[in-house]
């Protein structure tokens, strides 16, 4: 077994590559199942994870079980994204991964490959609020505010993906973000306001 200290992922991949040739024979020949070729590694060892969050690179050595949400909040220290249900039901943890609205609580940090944008990365680098953030303030689109980071990230994806043509389309696209304060009508109003400033419907 090769030394896995330097980079467990790369070494692991190397092992799999080596076992490929072994697998090719039995794969096609209906052979009886055989024991795994790779000895198990200790699953409690930290894994190296490289994340690009809001344009900044981070290299972490973390428990493989760490979700993208926990990596960003606890290890990188960006606590704007919120943990609501932690089961993909509420949308409070929504981030953009590769530009797509994604549930960070159901993503393993070690599996994330694309660039990540959190609520902290939505505003301009000079601190100017994004049109969607301004619209949420103007339209009073929150009460307690706990779901708001996820709402705004989803709302940006809603407009960028062309899902904001009508109130009904907005409501449907935003259905994965729950608001226990029921600010929904104001959230729809905010998205309608911001979509003009963002340049497309």
């Amino acid at each position, binding site marked *: 077994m090769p030394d896995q200290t330097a980079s467990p*992922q790369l070494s*692991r*991949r190397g092992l*799999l*590559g080596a*076992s*490929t040739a*072994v*697998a*090719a024979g*039995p*794969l*096609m*020949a*209906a*052979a*009886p*199942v*055989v*024991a*795994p*070729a*790779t000895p*198990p*590694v200790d*699953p*409690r060892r930290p*894994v190296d994870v490289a994340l690009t969050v809001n344009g900044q690179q981070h290299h972490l050595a973390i428990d*493989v*079980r760490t*979700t993208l949400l926990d990596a960003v909040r606890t290890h990188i220290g960006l606590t704007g994204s919120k943990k609501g249900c*932690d*089961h*993909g039901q509420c*949308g409070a943890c*929504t981030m953009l991964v590769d530009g*797509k*609205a*994604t*549930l960070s609580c*159901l*993503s*393993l940090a*070690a*599996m994330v*490959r694309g660039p990540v944008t959190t609520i902290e990365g939505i505003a301009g680098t000079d601190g100017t609020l994004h049109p969607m953030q301004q619209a949420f303030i103007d339209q009073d689109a929150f009460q307690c505010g706990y779901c708001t980071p996820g709402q705004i990230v*989803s709302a940006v*994806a*809603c407009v960028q993906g062309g*899902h904001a043509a009508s109130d009904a389309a907005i*409501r*449907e*696209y935003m*259905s*994965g*973000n729950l608001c226990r304060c029921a600010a929904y009508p104001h959230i729809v109003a905010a998205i309608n306001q911001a979509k003009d400033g963002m340049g497309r419907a």
Partner: protein
Amino acid sequence: MRPFNLDHAATLPAALAAARPVAGARVPPTAAPAQFIAGGTQMLDLMKLDTMQPATLVDINALSAAHGRIEAKSDGLHLGALVRMSEAEAHPDILRDYPVIAQTLQMAASPQIRNMASLGGNVLQRTRCCYFRDPGWAQCNKREPGSGCAALDGVNRKHAVLGVSDQCIAAYSGDFAQALVALGAEVQTAGPNGVRTIAFEKLHTASDNPHTETVLAPGELITGFRVPSGPWTRRSAYVKIRDRESYAYGLATAAVALDIQGGVVREARIGLGAVSYRPWRSHEAEAALRGKPLTEDTANATARAAFAGAKPRQDNAYLIDLGRRTLARALLQASRLEA
């Protein structure tokens, strides 16, 4: 969550090698120590609940290049297993020629989940039965074979009435699978014993052995689907009735496709879900409609045939009537479409 090893497989052979089952082990694929993970929307949810306890996760997302394409060909629609739900729901060929497929995807889950979830993982989604999901319940034949079924005399308002047994009444809540079962799709797999093609209707197994949910072997991976073309695919529709209008599982759902010539139904394809234990193709209902004009009366008669074998428990008898109305509505809706 329990500790696990995470393997990043760069190729299909590497993925199969990493998930290769241990010799002599006899477990259903859902209990195999190595599990494939793509979007992870269900796997991580069930691992957090301790309902699934894999020792190894094999990340197959790098296989997208080879198994992540949508191709409309003369023999039908080819869907790679790693196509994301949100890609397929907006694909122009699917929207035009297979509207029932697009609709099942559009009405499923939330946009975030559809951005993440793969088609291959979607059809393997497990039941929402609360007695299954929560390991705090001692009785669940799906989790613990022979332990019993807490749902039989529990709160079973959302449990199945078709294809159930005294072992399990859990409902299959997926949407996309109903389009596949109705349209007679095929599943392509690769596993420790080679590659094979399975009729989608045969993928999910019956409720008399609830611990085993599919015919897949441990370590066998769905690589894609083929949906055969036919004169019924364009005139197709999905109706989903649920407790709230969006982001909810169905209570009663119907996927239908119709070939109507000269005012007469030559071929009807009917898939049901939520009311059934597995993706349910109703051959009885299809036979009841064949050769007849599609009217409100024949639609209702077809729906009665679909639910003739229904077996309700104390809280879910309403699903029989709701299911019939849902199917009748889907048939009438599809009949008004252009072929």
